[in-house]
């Protein structure tokens, strides 16, 4: 059985929902403490949402220096699937595993709402089971979710098909309506929406499952 390690920093608060969503789809989820230094027995990593290290300095800025991140960066370099959700996306940009940064939302408010997303690329470990243009209803829950980068980085993201998810109605001002991107090698994905919160019709949507299924299929 595939084991997905879900990283838990002080302040992470989506790790159990993420494990639940993975296990409902037949995977095994294992919480990994941020002070751990290895990923033995782990086939893929999810950096779950929350407020790692209290978001002190900047979201993700301190988390990047947690001991587990050396192992995550090394594993990502060797091709292990690594997904960052919400705060996890911020951690991945701060760690240099993904380009760009997440700035405060355009409307200057925290947004907690459902979003319609469009699958822009299926060529990543988190979207491979979906189809291009498929609409997904998945919630967002963030203040700093406004993806930004310089023009040449954006050109690169487009040219290399690294934009994997976009907002249908851009809620936060993200450049290019970007909700999620991957690295050039396509094994590291970051997204602001929370697929683990759209893992059962009872929650209002199960559209997040296709993303988690993609991750499990990528292992």
């Amino acid at each position, binding site marked *: 059985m595939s084991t997905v390690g879900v990283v838990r920093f002080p302040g992470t608060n989506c790790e159990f929902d993420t494990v639940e969503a993975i296990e409902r789809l037949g995977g095994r989820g294992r919480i990994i403490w941020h002070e751990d230094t290895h990923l033995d027995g782990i086939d893929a990593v999810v950096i779950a949402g929350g407020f790692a290290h209290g978001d002190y300095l900047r979201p993700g800025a301190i988390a990047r220096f947690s001991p587990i991140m050396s192992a995550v960066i090394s594993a990502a370099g060797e091709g292990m699937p690594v997904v960052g959700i919400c705060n996890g996306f911020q951690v991945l940009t701060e760690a240099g595993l993904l380009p760009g940064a997440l700035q405060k939302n355009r409307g200057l408010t925290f947004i907690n709402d459902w979003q319609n997303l469009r699958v822009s690329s299926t060529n990543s470990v988190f979207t491979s089971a979906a189809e291009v243009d498929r609409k997904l209803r998945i919630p967002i829950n963030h203040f700093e979710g406004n993806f*930004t980068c310089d023009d040449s980085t954006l050109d690169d993201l487009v040219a290399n098909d690294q934009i994997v998810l976009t907002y249908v109605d851009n809620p936060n001002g993200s450049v290019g309506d970007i909700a999620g991107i991957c690295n050039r090698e396509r094994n590291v994905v970051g997204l602001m929406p929370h697929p683990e919160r759209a893992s059962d019709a009872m929650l209002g949507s199960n559209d997040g499952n296709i993303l988690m299924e993609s991750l499990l299929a990528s292992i």
Partner: protein
Amino acid sequence: MKFHAVIDVQLHPGIADPQGSTIERALPTLGFDAMSNVRSGKSFHLDIEADDEVAARATLTEVCESFLTNPVIEAASIELTPAEGAGS
């Protein structure tokens, strides 16, 4: 030598600053209606040991670029002064 450093971190122009915007909107309601372009930021105060000011600045620049700022959205300026008792 020991230096005292004051590091000022500001968002790049154009990057949203809700705190600055909120303060700016509040000022007129308090009767201060002559102010505009309010931007908030962060400052860090610290002491650093280095051979000279050039070396201290080089180290702090590295710290700013790798940790204290996210260069995609922020920039830092560094002020250095000899710390109390320096040279004695």
